[in-house]
């Protein structure tokens, strides 16, 4: 009897414990893609996620700026061994710098593609839907633009490739790549609003798309289109800020002149490029030091110099215990640091809410001026608007030489110079080989720029290897 009870007890335990569904699991706190894309909130969430990779250290948080260290504006500084080869044109395709931002650009594209595939089918407010799709087209176009200027043509991963899981694609032709950028940016310009409310500052708008189109057309030497699209920006609500420095101060950095910038918010999602450009003793990592040659480019008394660089004798309020501190030459190996990317917290330390500007109205003015001059028109109005703000004398019948000068000082440190020089060299406006042969001191000795090899950087070797030969290398690498 007792034994039977014990047996019964065991049977009860077993029955209680048996559970057929024990292997069924639930993705707690996450959705599967088939459950997502329900409404406008999902669409906006997916759109917001497109921007996230832009700020990572291996992209605009630092690495993307390294593509400008070969220019004659700056010495690479810092302690990344691979940078020296980039600066001196001795790099090969295996240089890790070439790969750092590659994947992040494709990640933005991947997230944009997800929006472009799924959002059209969502039932939601049409204005919001247009904005969301416009953002996706803008960011995808912007990414392929960066690819094009750095590497030339690249594999174009578009909606249909995502649907077919077709990622190992051959490089498109350069024309196809530019056509894609053009098509994406034109759609963006059509879909995006003219401007945004305070809560959405930093999303691209029509001005951002048209500005980038103007720049792209100038690279393609389609001067009338540069003028047309540039003029749309200049006719829009995107006036120059009152002061040049307003573009580089946290309080005013989202003013209308800044057509598009990578947003940064301290303690939330910040932009480490700020740390990279700051002296070590001030809590930075000491990269991208401006060289004397750049300082000398500034006209005597140009106030932009003070807001572009820290130079010996500058008194800077570092906040907190440090307070007002003198910038001394020994903080830098060249004697200077860029100032455009730093603001200081009142309590001390770098203000990490400092944005990373991508395109400004001043840039567009100079693009239009250049297009006009190079197509035999007069670009004085545009270049003088930029010069006037800086209190510079007004020019008449401005020449390409003056435009080249103006771009260098207005946009110093904004990741433009090396690419500008390449395109001017192609147009026989400058001799980049001779320019880079110039001895700018022991830190910036003469370098061998090889035409046409160095017009483009090398496609990362890793990608070529992983593609099993589908990806081809740029000439001479």
């Amino acid at each position: 009897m007792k034994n039977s009870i014990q047996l019964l007890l065991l049977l009860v335990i077993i029955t209680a414990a048996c559970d057929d569904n024990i292997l069924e699991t639930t993705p707690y706190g996450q959705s599967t893609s088939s459950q997502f894309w329900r409404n406008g909130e999902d669409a906006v969430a997916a759109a917001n996620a497109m921007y996230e990779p832009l700020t990572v250290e291996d992209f605009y948080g630092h690495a993307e700026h390294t593509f400008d260290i070969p220019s004659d504006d700056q010495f690479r500084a810092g302690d990344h061994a691979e940078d020296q080869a980039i600066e001196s044109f001795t790099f090969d395709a295996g240089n890790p710098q070439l790969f750092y931002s590659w994947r992040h650009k494709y990640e933005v594209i991947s997230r944009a593609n997800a929006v472009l595939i799924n959002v059209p089918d969502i039932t939601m407010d049409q204005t919001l839907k247009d904005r969301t799709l416009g953002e996706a087209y803008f960011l995808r176009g912007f990414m392929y633009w960066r690819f094009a200027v750095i590497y030339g043509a690249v594999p174009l991963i578009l909606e249909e490739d995502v649907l077919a899981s077709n990622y190992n694609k051959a490089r498109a032709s350069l024309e196809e790549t530019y056509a894609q950028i053009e098509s994406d940016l034109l759609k963006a310009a059509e879909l995006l609003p003219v401007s945004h409310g305070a809560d959405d500052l930093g999303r691209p708008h029509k001005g951002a798309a048209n500005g980038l189109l103007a720049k792209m057309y100038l690279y393609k030497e389609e001067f009338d289109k540069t003028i047309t699209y540039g003029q749309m920006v200049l006719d829009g609500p995107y006036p120059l800020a009152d002061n040049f420095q307003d573009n580089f101060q946290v309080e005013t950095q989202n003013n209308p002149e800044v057509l598009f910038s990578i947003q940064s918010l301290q303690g939330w999602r910040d932009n480490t490029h700020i740390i990279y450009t700051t002296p070590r003793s001030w809590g930075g990592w000491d990269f991208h030091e401006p060289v004397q040659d750049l300082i000398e480019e500034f006209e005597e008394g140009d106030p932009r110099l003070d807001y572009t660089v820290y130079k010996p004798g500058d008194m800077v309020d570092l906040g907190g215990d440090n307070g007002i501190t003198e910038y001394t030459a020994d903080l830098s190996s060249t004697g200077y640091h860029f100032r455009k990317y730093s603001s200081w917290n009142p309590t001390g330390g770098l203000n990490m809410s400092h944005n990373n500007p991508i395109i400004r109205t001043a840039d567009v003015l100079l693009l239009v001026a250049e297009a006009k001059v190079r197509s035999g028109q007069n670009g004085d109005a545009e270049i003088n608007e930029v010069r006037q703000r800086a209190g510079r004398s007004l020019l008449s019948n401005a020449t390409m030489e003056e435009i080249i000068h103006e771009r260098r000082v207005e946009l110093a440190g904004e990741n433009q110079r090396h690419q500008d020089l390449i395109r001017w060299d192609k147009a026989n406006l400058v001799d980049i080989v001779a320019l880079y042969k110039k001895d700018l001191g022991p830190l910036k000795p003469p370098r061998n720029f090889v035409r046409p090899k160095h017009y483009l950087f090398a496609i990362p070797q890793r990608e070529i290897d992983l593609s099993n030969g589908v990806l081809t290398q740029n000439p001479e690498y």
Partner: protein
Amino acid sequence: MKKTIPKRNSHQGLWLVVQLFVFMLLVQPLLALPTVPENFRMAAIKGSVVDETGEPLPGATITIEGTSQGTVSDIDGNFTIEVPENGALVVSFIGYQTQVVSIGNESVLNIQMIQEESSLNEVLVVGYGTQEKRDVTGAVSSIKGDNLQNLPVSGAAQALQGRAAGVNVVRNGGAPGNQGSIRIRGTGTLNNADPLIIIDGVPGGSLNDVNPNNIESVEILKDASASAIYGTRAANGVVIVTTKRGDFNQPLKVELNGYLGVSNAIKTIDVLDAPTLATLKRERYTNDGLAINSIWEDPSYQTQMTNWQEELLGQGTTQNVDLTLSGGNNNSSFMIAGGYFKEEGMITNSDFRRLSFRINSDHKLSDKFKIGQNLQLVSINQRSPNTLSAQTGVLWSAIRFHPGLPVMYPDGSYSSSQVSGEFGDINNPIFTQDTQDNNSTTHKILGNLNAEYEVLEGLKFRVNFGLDGYISDGYNFNIIVNDQIRTSSMNSLSRSYNEYYSVLAEYFLSYDKVFNELHKVNFVGGYTTQTFNSDYFSASKRDFLDESFDQRFLSVGQTLNGIDGGKSYDALASYFGRATYNYDERYLVTATFRSDGSSKFAPGNRWGYFPAFSLGWRISEEDFFQNVGFISNMKLTGGWGSLGNQNVNGLQYLALISSGRRYSFGGNQTVGAAQTRVPNLGITWETAQMTNIGLDLGFLDNRLLANFNYFIKDTKDMLIAPPTIGSIGTAQIPNQNLGELRNKGLEVEVLFRESQGKLTYTVSGNASFIQNEVTKLVDGNFIGSRLYGRSSQELSRTYQGAPIASFYGWRADGLYQTAEEIQNDSNIANDPRKTSGLIQPGDVKFLDLNDDGLIDEEDREIIGNPHPKVVYGLNTQLGYGNFDFSLFFLGNAGFDIYNADRMQGIDPTYPFNMYAETINRWNGEGTSNEIPRMTTKRDNLNHRTSDLFLEKGDFLRLKNVVLGYTLPAALTSRLGVSKARFYVTGQNVFVLTGYSGMDPELGYTDGNLQLNVDYAQYPQSRSWTIGTTITF
């Protein structure tokens, strides 16, 4: 549509089990109190205790069964005791089997003791049962608890190092509580290759939770046949820990252990002093034609002030105290143990504390019905410094911080390299350690309740319910740092809370029967499920206006940084069976089958089937073998089996959208959602197929035992996340069943035991020769691994056709001595750097492996192997009278270490202090062929990953030495103590090695993908301990 989550009130299950345990705890004393049998008439008994050879055994303990009354045998082995009539005596002596002798009518007893572990009759725990060693046909290593006792180490894993062939315990640095990685028969997969740990029948615990002093035995199931019964998770081997239990009818026994020790650094790295550093820094500017930075001319920084490594590495301490009570009556037995272990590391604010409590008991409800229980409660608190970063690691920093700065300035503030960017962006390492404030506390419970019912003779039905759970709490406070060079403008506190529990249920039948005295049959079979639940949340706040310790709470922070939380659930369900057949003690057969379902895979791919079988032939039992006198035992075994591994993330078959993608617009926080992982619908079991051939030999009446095992282990369908083309973006790539891996090797264990008079000694050794090779990877591609330092240098790659984590880099061939040599060097005939004059004498000459006349990425190859060809252990135990002495050596041979710390340590392009040997740098033709010139330039990348920084890692370490003395029994018995032993232990006493770094035991630094790279890890210390064990 919003999805509906099925309700699973999982806490109810947890509570049920907890309540059961609490109940057991409460009824425990009632069940288990040993009761003294009622005394009848007493009789005086005389007797003597002798060993197997008839020699008297002095000091044997003789107690009256069921009581604590007793005596000890004298120097001639004789004793006298008053015993109740029809009572029984329990005779015990260390190293011998305890005997219970019932008193008949005799008044003189001669008791012959039989040595324990006469090995062949040794009973091994083999999973869902036990087997006598002679019947085992698989490869099983067994380590008795005695070998693990009172070692000054934080956990059983460390104690197992070097104790068994084929079991490699890789120490990952010497931080307190760091238990290392156990690799059984090589690294079996690129994924988690940790073996399955089973503590008292509950799979999944951690070896660090068990007080080594509570361990009865550790069995390691190495081959497929032995471990197939745990097929699901057995691909990397199984470690079965069995803790001590009380015996039925055992008088109360109380054992007290205590030890106390100190530990110190074994070695520091010689670095430059302040004046020499300034000289070399100036030289690098002069060599480059640059103006010397004025700080290096400033005499105030050229006085040697501080040896930072000595400041950082102080004296550590280790202490342990534990108490064990055990006993039992006719129906119940118990063991209760409590202990406290504390290790303070050499580095300030690094420590490990464990409070442990254990209660094991067994009960007979009837002749047929038994229940048993184990419960382990552990509380662990741990503080660990960062010693693995080549950016901020404290030891890394101490090697590089400016030696001309004091620890503190006269005003009591910490010195700082804010003085100049030339001193490098390193914070004062003493400041870092003093102000570090993080710790983790974990409360763990592990236990089970099991019941056995004998349905028919030989047929038993068993159930086992287990629980393994923990609650862990992480705390980290970061202060505002303004006065060091790596500033931090915000303070912040983060807390994370994680609750995990796993519930096990096992139901199985076992059947034992002997037919005709020739056919011995055993069968075990059943069903088991285990669920794994985890639930976490974390919160972080910043902007604390007051950083006082009593204000470091979340409520004080002004700004919310973030809150996170989540939950996961996984489960396994399995059917298993094992049959063994033994014919006439000569022919042995074992067959095992297991079928496992895992929730980690998509429906349709969930179930895996894992069979195994093995055969054994005890040749020494054959008639024809009876004349071979000197061989006392010989057994040949062979087996094959298939095992599974599912140690990868769950839900990889789903395309998941994760929220929490941060960005901001106009200074406003926004959150986005994106697909962060590519799904793999076909993901399924990784399997390992193993073949094993074993030979057991015994000589000289089994005083000399030897065991040889040869194995080949092939891992198939290995789950790897292949490197994927960048055009897919950064979404996580799922594991795919792509790779194949082979480990093969030979294991040897030898043991010799002898006693002559008062002298007893045991010498044992083991060695494993294991080769690892990745036999298939993705299309000739490699798997990369953790990058080193500021320049993200690649050190290790895993390639098809080579061992996992091979070192990968350039080949160096000395230094260029002259400009002519550079001009004529065919290695760089077409190198643009040569044409630009960027390569100079004193730079490293790299070899152009692909003969294209320039040095680039294509000139790299596999330059070294981090896996030892042989791992061995040597153990000697000597006993003479009341003294005991043991020596334990551990060795690794035939492997390379990549000394990354030295690579950066002699690199002058960084703004850091350098290794002292840098003084021997190249500074003119013929001055050095090894240490490159001083320069600030990196054109030639002299300090790129190359064989210049590869060293032989071979070492032989005196891991452990113990000298003990047991007080004479005659003395202790008068004190009411049955045994008292005192001992001194030395740990890591010395190491013989040619390796130039701090410690040749470096361990893993990136899962299995990087091994034996010197990052200036927390080194192991040398420690000396004194202790005592007293038994009442």
